[in-house]
């Protein structure tokens, strides 16, 4: 099947190095300490952060840093066919672990000992790149909750089909069976915190594909920074400053 036409257009009309349209909104869930909705094309996720709050399970309490918990779940209607088991299956558990470890790396946990930070991510529509959208949404939600972060974490995926590196795969391109590289990136520190790949790829091509994903992460970071600045201006305005 042809994923990149001879004119260089993908199935949804994008160029190989073009990301899908991103949209983000802060403060979607009024009850949460911090929350955000993040959309990458048709993938829509909502993240809520509760914390720092008292540890619910005393035996897990850590005396020198905060406990970070994360749960990823998909809505029944998020995928093409209705899902029977939206959480507790292997994929959801794995993604919960990945998101938790990624966010834990950038939260300054030693500033909040004996407390717990809960990150809950719910996928409302899934069209490829859910992992990346969840990490981006979680970053925004943590910033909205005012939790001290080392740096923003942004994430983007890329792949290699029809001998072309492609940025930000959607579901059809993702299930084509080609390699799928997901990168989690700290823009200010210029460091990679998450790197996952499946399928096979020669090493020199892998360098290009990973660089492409990192460029995507930087673009997401710029957008997230704009959103946060806009949000802060709104807060200042409401306080009458």
């Amino acid at each position, binding site marked *: 099947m042809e994923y990149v036409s001879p004119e260089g257009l993908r199935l949804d009309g994008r160029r190989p190095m073009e990301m899908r349209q991103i949209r983000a909104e802060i403060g979607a869930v009024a009850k949460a300490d911090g929350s955000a909705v993040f959309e990458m094309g048709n993938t829509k996720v909502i993240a809520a952060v509760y914390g720092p709050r008292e540890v619910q399970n005393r035996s897990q309490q850590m005396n020198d840093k905060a406990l970070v918990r994360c749960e990823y779940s998909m809505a029944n209607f998020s995928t093409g066919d209705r899902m029977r088991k939206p959480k507790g299956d292997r994929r959801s558990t794995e993604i919960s672990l990945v998101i938790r470890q990624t966010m834990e790396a950038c939260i300054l946990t030693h500033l909040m000992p004996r407390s717990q930070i809960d990150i809950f991510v719910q996928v409302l*529509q899934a069209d490829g790149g859910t992992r990346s959208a969840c990490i981006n949404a979680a970053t925004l939600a943590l910033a909205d909750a005012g939790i001290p972060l080392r740096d923003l974490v942004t994430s983007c995926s890329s792949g290699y089909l029809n001998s072309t590196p492609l940025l930000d795969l959607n579901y059809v391109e993702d299930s084509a069976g080609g390699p799928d590289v997901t990168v989690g990136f700290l823009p200010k520190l210029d460091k990679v915190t998450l790197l996952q790949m499946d399928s096979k790829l020669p090493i020199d091509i892998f360098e290009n594909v990973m660089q492409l994903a990192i460029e995507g992460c930087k673009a997401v970071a710029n957008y997230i920074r704009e959103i946060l600045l806009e949000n802060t201006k709104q807060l200042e305005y409401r306080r009458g400053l």
Partner: protein
Amino acid sequence: MGLPDTSRDLSSEVEVDAFRRLFPLRFYERHLSESIRPDGRPLGRARDTTIALGAVASADGSGLAKIGSTTMLAAIKMEVMTPSMESPDEGCLAIDFHMPPICSPIVRPGRPAEAAPVVSKQLSDTISSSGMVDLKELSLVSGKAAWMVYLDIYCLDADGALFDAALLSAVAALSYLQIPAVSLNEDGRVVVVSEEDGGKPEKEPVNRENRKLTLKSIPFSLTCILHKNYILADPTAEEESIMETLVTVVLDSSSQLISLYKPGGPVLANTSAIQDSIALTRQRVRELQKILDEANSGMEVD
């Protein structure tokens, strides 16, 4: 913009917040005696309600309902199934209500919220007993194929009046539902006809005429809290946690009573309290009907 008189105003504001946390009941009674609530609403008024249709593009029908901060997202997915022996001409409607941990600080992952199965059962009972959906409309080929409608409702923000918002979002999703066109292929199995196939399809769609459900007697509800002699319409989560006696009244658009639900509680209601709740609900039904009609006509213009 001059700076506010910070020192005095902040300290009195802190006292009000502290009073609200330490003595919530007295805080509310001070307001109720003036016939008003802390958020400025009169006792009988519900919060601002909005409906957005088609929020989830990948589902066959969806609706997002917000009552104040309480947000519910309902989405419908349809699958073809074989109908049961006892009712070969009827499809099936399965309703499920979920409260994921994002909606409230008291919901813990791994342990579902107490309210979730209760609201789920209430919704199933109300929608099936109201007769809103005629199951015979869901039949495709008598005895062989019928639609199974999965209606999933997710609570995205829990701030009181969960049942009202969930029912409203379910009704909105059902009114927006587009039934996919299907046809019989050679094996006699029903397949979904894709709309992007250009040209003449070899198989005739089985149900081209009825793409939307006809809904009769749409149910609308209002939850009220009873406290001493006061009746508070549409409670927030804070009000629900302090004053525990709830009454939920469900009426349909012709003001017939579909269900009345009062699950115990410290306050005993006499008939006049029940009648007052029903009167408040009747008013609310008119508001909700208008909001739903506006949302539907808004989508049709597109």
